[in-house]
């Protein structure tokens, strides 16, 4: 055997292997060719549809619901009214559907009357933060228990944060967190013998604010920026430990309808004051149609090196029942889901 022949045959074998490997791996995928198809399988009186899809391109898609029992049949609609006896805990199940081909970790926290509270979750003890890990396409119900509340009317909203451990400073990741990677469900609760739900009188925000004018780009939403009334998103910043970091929370009603909203700043998913020297951790606003404001805010930077996550929650219609009351269809034009701001990566060096 001479070396030329050996080289030729090895090269031919390698080429054959490469061609066959490419053929079965699907690599020669042609852009524009169908990435999905739908088929129907009829059996008896029922038809089950199935869809094939490119699982590598399915991004965020998950659902959450609060249940009264451990099965999905125990579902009631969003902001369902719950009644509990005085001195009793509020118990329920958080149902989560990870509608993705990837396994995912979610951070869970809850706001009672728009203040973050420790609560029991999934039989793992009481805490402010809880985490769940879900397999691809897993659907599960997790028990939770909220400590007894004072008699009267309350709101409890439970939040799920997807990718809580992602701290990339890449701009595209930061943009992808805008109004995304967060889900929540709210319930209105009556404790005691009250006949109906009464929204407590709210202390509206009366701190400093700048009018951005009705031409400002926001409509029924929130944007975190460096300068007030700016349109340039604040994505990340290099910061000094233990210093004060200033930023602006810009909020706007739609030009065609008013909004009521609670604004809640979070640092590393823990609720923090709007600004140093204030205890206000939640700001309530009622904005007229076309009213756009910029709120000066700041946060004390942690001492720990690494990337810390600053996020501001936009929680619409505090103490309103969003689903149950048919009048709401006519009453509320407002976007009825809580939304997160872009997660701002604060890089402590």
């Amino acid at each position, binding site marked *: 055997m001479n070396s030329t022949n050996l080289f030729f045959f090895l090269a031919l074998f390698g080429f054959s292997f490469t061609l066959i490997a490419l053929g079965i791996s699907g690599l020669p995928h042609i852009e524009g060719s169908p990435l999905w198809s739908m088929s129907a399988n009829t059996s008896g009186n029922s038809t089950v549809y199935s869809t094939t899809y490119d699982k590598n391109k399915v991004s965020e898609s998950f659902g959450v619901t609060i249940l009264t029992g451990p099965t999905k049949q125990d579902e009631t609609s969003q902001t369902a009214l719950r009644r509990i006896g005085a001195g009793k805990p509020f118990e329920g199940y958080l149902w989560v559907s990870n509608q993705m081909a990837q396994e995912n970790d979610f951070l869970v926290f809850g706001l009672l009357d728009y203040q973050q509270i420790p609560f029991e979750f999934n039989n793992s003890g009481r805490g402010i933060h809880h985490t769940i890990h879900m397999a691809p396409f897993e659907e599960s119900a997790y028990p939770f228990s909220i400590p007894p509340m004072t008699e009267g009317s309350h709101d409890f909203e439970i939040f799920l944060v997807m990718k809580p451990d992602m701290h990339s400073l890449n701009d595209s990741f930061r*943009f992808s967190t*805008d109004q995304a990677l967060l889900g929540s469900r709210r319930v209105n609760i009556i404790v005691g013998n009250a006949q109906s739900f009464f929204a407590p009188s709210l202390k509206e925000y009366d701190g400093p604010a700048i009018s951005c004018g009705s031409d400002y780009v926001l409509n029924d939403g929130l944007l975190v920026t460096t300068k007030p009334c700016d349109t340039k998103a604040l994505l990340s910043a290099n910061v000094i430990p233990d210093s004060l970091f200033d930023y602006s929370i810009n909020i706007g009603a739609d030009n065609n309808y008013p909004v009521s909203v609670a604004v809640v700043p979070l640092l590393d998913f823990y609720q923090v004051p709007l600004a140093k020297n204030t205890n206000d951790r939640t700001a309530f606003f009622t904005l007229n149609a076309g009213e756009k404001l910029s709120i000066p805010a700041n946060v004390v930077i942690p001492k720990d090196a690494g990337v810390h996550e600053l996020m501001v929650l936009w929680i619409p219609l505090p103490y309103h029942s969003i689903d149950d009351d048919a009048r709401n269809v006519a009453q509320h034009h407002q976007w009825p889901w809580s939304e997160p701001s872009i997660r701002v990566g604060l890089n402590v060096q």
Partner: protein
Amino acid sequence: MNLHKTFFVLLALLLAGMAIVPITSAESSEAGVTTQYLPPQEGAKFTGANPDKDIGVGGMLKTRIAAQPVKSAFAATADAPQWSAYTDLWRNWWSASPVYCDAYSRSRTSSGSAYDINKIALRERVWRDGALYNDQTDTRYNSADAVVNYQYSAVYTGGTWTAQSDHTFELSGYTSWYPVTTDTLT
């Protein structure tokens, strides 16, 4: 000759090995969400753009059959609606063209008719070089469609444009769906 034999033995072993290895591809047969980056010809059906001339026509389409929470999470009965979420950023072929962003949430029967659901909505945000240019919502109750169309016209419309839409589909008895669709245009 020994060399030839060696080659064919190796090739035979390779092929035999492949026969017992599960063949995989980029697509999964698992039922659920469909994500599609539409080619221009398909995208133009949604936006009215000229697929042969206009730029960036296509966009992201996500589709799923509404699922009921039964044993198989994504089994769906014949009367379940088909939900689709779409965002497309595009511009005309001439240089001073406006930039358009068309986004919708849509609920249909298997035959393509409107299928009203409890809540259908979308929030569309359009960014240009990191600055927010449009923020718009459309929330509908007992409806089959939510739509946001945006158009930006100026002497210069260059830069990197990004759009992200947050969609909502809620129907009693079915698993709610909250997909996010995105598109870019440079």
